[in-house]
């Protein structure tokens, strides 16, 4: 006879307010096989765990059920408790009576009955638990960092400094990301390039870091400790080794296209580096706009290159690399303003997004840092900044706060007023959110020292009127409708997830939230890990973030990756599939559904009536199996079972719930 213990957790008031703990404990004590049932306010605490341990010894328990929160939260905690008391950790079951019960119900009677049913199911499953043993899998001591913005650079440097090799993959021709586009950074106003470019240089020269710019991750297979990634190095058409970055090629190139880096405010050539401090300082030929590739004419860059580095025949290179850990730091996009016609964006050159304004302020930007109206190159006298364009806007934009706009708008006000002390800045805002070290003081400087007029309310319309822009809005504090004649209007455009974030999430097997930002494993306790083991998140790909936060998260993700990479071996989860060869008919339907290619066929020999017969069966590679269970449901004779979740156990749970 099994000796099962049941431990019911109050979770403070989280469970106890909705579920009658005493009634549940009493009912659990009477369940088949249960020899002990107890409860405690916080089962996961040190005291709670020692209560479990002493009960195991005192009551000679050979397995137990904890009725508490989701197994995502504390299953591993209680498995460790079991191991500490000498039990196999896989003889522990969790009945989730918090997320699945107390949090979602109001009626105490019904919630109590449901909690009892959930525990009954867990007890029925526990009675059929078998001891399982984890096996050791080796770790590939290399890391992949996807995205070469400040987040990716920081994560790569931290991991490399710990002594592990890192491949940093960046889609565009240079690392640097959005931070390279910025002029100054809040709240200290230090120059973005001055603090970023040394880091870019460091990443490029670090002996443990390999840069793959103008490259993309196409495929990721494998699992924690043993990922296998396919990286496409797009044809640069310029030899990275030979090029000296002298710049003759892009001076001579006759094709001009809008510069992505300058937010289309300036032109670049078809052979180009995105910005002067680019790393690597080697140009790329944009084949879609190059005369050689579109019309087979020109070729002047090849003729003039003193190093003979231009190579029109270069082809994409596809690399297969192995990694133990992956850091995702792919950053963000800004919202498309097509649905915001009232601001005349795109209709008038003096209406700009904040990122465009940033380029105009930047001394290496399209105007060389001269802040002039794009329409007529005259100095602006009145500039209106409109915050929350698309942020906190359920109807047309995003419901969330983009987090950085209050601060960068204050920065823009200060930089504008530094250049034109006599001019006036107006800022329309919903709320000012400056929660960060020295942030509020910075915002107050914009108001008090620089005299920016902050107007609580929204601007409803911007339209060209003569050579000015008329901004109509409301100041909700005075109740006045306002009309401001502006020379420039700057829109604090919402931050959104990269448009192809869902595709990358699918490729990596990680999840996204409703706005396509990557999901962390736990919003509070595991903020830098993805749900998939071995994949870590850094920066705005996980949600809007400023630079200090991105850098901290990147270092956090790097630390987590280092912990993983510094292990010689990992313990594999023993909850994997196994094939009962005597039942297997060799139909191999399981091979087709396995997403991890973990099932292969093999031939076995059997003696039937004294005759040796050969037949085909399925075989599971336990190192590749992730325990998803797809094969078990595809198996018609029921020959495949997931250890720890066998068909028998699942059916026993169903029976117990339906009781």
């Amino acid at each position, binding site marked *: 006879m099994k000796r099962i213990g049941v431990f019911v957790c109050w979770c403070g008031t989280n469970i106890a307010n909705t579920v009658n703990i005493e009634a549940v404990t009493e009912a659990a004590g009477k369940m088949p096989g249960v020899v002990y049932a107890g409860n405690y306010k916080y089962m996961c605490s040190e005291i709670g765990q020692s209560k479990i341990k002493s009960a195991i010894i005192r009551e000679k328990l050979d397995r137990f059920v904890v009725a508490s929160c989701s197994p995502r939260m504390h299953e591993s905690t209680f498995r460790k408790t079991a191991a500490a008391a000498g039990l196999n950790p896989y003889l522990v079951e969790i009945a989730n009576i918090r997320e699945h019960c107390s949090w979602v119900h109001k009626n105490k009677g019904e919630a109590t009955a449901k909690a009892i049913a959930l525990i009954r199911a867990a007890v029925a499953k526990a009675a059929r638990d078998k001891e399982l043993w984890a096996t050791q899998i080796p770790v590939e001591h290399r890391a992949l960092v996807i995205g070469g913005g400040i987040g990716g650079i920081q994560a790569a440097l931290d991991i490399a400094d710990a002594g592990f090799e890192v491949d940093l993959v960046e889609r565009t021709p240079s690392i640097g990301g959005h931070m390279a586009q910025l002029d100054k950074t809040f709240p200290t106003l230090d120059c973005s390039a001055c603090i970023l470019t040394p880091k870019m240089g460091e990443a490029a020269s670090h002996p443990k870091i390999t840069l793959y710019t103008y490259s993309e991750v196409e495929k990721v297979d494998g699992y924690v400790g043993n990922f296998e990634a396919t990286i496409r190095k797009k044809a640069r058409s310029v030899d990275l080794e030979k090029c000296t970055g002298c710049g003759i090629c892009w001076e001579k190139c006759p094709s001009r296209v809008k510069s992505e880096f300058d937010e289309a405010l300036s032109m670049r050539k078809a052979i180009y580096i995105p910005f002067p401090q680019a790393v690597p300082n080697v140009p790329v030929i944009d084949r879609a706009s190059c005369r050689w590739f579109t019309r087979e004419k020109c070729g002047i860059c090849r003729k003039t290159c003193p190093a003979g580095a231009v190579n029109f025949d270069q082809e994409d290179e596809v690399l297969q690399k192995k990694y133990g850990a992956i850091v995702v730091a792919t950053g963000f996009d800004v919202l498309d303003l097509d649905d915001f*016609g009232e601001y005349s964006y795109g209709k008038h050159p003096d209406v700009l997004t904040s990122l465009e304004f940033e380029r105009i302020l930047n001394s290496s930007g399209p105007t060389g840092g001269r802040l002039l109206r794009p329409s007529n190159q005259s100095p602006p006298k009145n500039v209106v900044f409109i915050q929350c364009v698309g942020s906190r806007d359920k109807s047309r934009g995003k419901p969330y706060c983009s987090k950085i706009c209050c601060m960068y708008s204050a920065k823009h006000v200060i930089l504008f007023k530094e250049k034109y002390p006599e001019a006036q800045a107006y800022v329309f805002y919903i709320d000012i959110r400056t929660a960060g070290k020295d942030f509020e003081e910075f915002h107050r400087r914009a108001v008090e020292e620089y005299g920016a007029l902050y107007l609580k309310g929204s601007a409803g319309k911007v339209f*060209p*009127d003569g050579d000015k822009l008329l901004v109509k809005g409301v100041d909700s504090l005075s109740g006045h409708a306002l009309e401001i004649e502006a020379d420039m209007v700057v829109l604090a455009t919402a931050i959104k997830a990269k448009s192809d974030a869902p595709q990358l999430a699918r490729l990596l097997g990680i999840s996204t939230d409703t706005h396509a930002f990557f999901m962390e494993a736990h919003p509070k306790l595991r903020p830098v890990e993805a749900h998939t083991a071995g994949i870590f998140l850094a920066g705005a790909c996980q949600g809007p973030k400023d630079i200090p936060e991105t850098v901290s998260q990147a270092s956090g993700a790097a630390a987590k990756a280092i912990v993983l990479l510094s292990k010689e071996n990992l313990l594999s989860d023993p909850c994997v599939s196994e094939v009962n060869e005597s039942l297997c008919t060799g139909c191999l339907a399981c091979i087709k559904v396995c997403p991890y290619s973990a099932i292969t066929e093999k031939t076995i020999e059997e003696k039937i009536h004294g005759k040796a017969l050969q037949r085909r069966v399925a075989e599971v590679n336990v190192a590749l199996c992730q325990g998803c269970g797809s094969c078990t449901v595809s198996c018609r004779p029921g020959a495949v079972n997931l250890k720890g979740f066998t068909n028998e156990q699942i059916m026993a749970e169903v029976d117990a719930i339906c009781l």
Partner: protein
Amino acid sequence: MRFSYYPGCTLKTTAALLENSALKAARALGIELIEQEKWQCCGAVFPLAALEIAPFLSSVRSLAAAKDTGEKLVTICAACYHVLKRANHVMKTDRDVCTKANNYLQLPEQYRGGTEVIHYLELLRDEVGFPTLARKVKKPLTGRKIAAFYGCLLLRPPAVMQFDNAENPSIMEDFLHALGAAAVDYPYRTECCGVYLSVQNEEIVAEMVAKIINSALSHGAEAIVDACPLCHYNLLELQKKTPQGKSTLPVYYFTELLEEALDLKDKVEEKMAF
């Protein structure tokens, strides 16, 4: 082309000019507009009181009657269009109001928002087509610089009205181009005219109208064209009360220009005299 037609009170009284010119042009374009037999006032303002069902009923009667004929329901007045379209949307989406209205009216058949309500401008754009209209123009308004004024009722709320892009509409400009005129782009074309405030506080409306008129003038307009009796009244009458104290810009219904371009103005009026 045959359509049910809901005229509304204003078109039978102060805005008779709008109806007459629209109907004449429709005949010339081969469009049959069959006036509904028993129509009632739409209420002139869309009822926002959620619990009040009575203000919807007259609209629902007309909508249901149009459904029985299987024809689209055409309106010329912007206010009627606004009220009918929004009432129809409520019937389509709010089950509670729909049930109550049906219970109250006891129609032979339940009405659930099946009728399509279209404005005369949409009729020209989607049923006739502006290129076809352009071909039928006999006296193109070449060289005339005209500013279109949209007002609010046709465009807002955008999710329900779905008439045109609410912030940057183009249907009236496209219409003007079809007639051969030059459309003047100016910032106030989608602003509010002041609506019923002209009854209560003429000064405020005069100020609003002055902004619209002056903006159109400064962008080179020689006339302003609208599609709404109330906008028309405010732009025409309140213009006289602006600081300038006199009318500076002629105001037309869009159908007047249509009538002129189709060369129906005088001759047809003579023939039509009953």
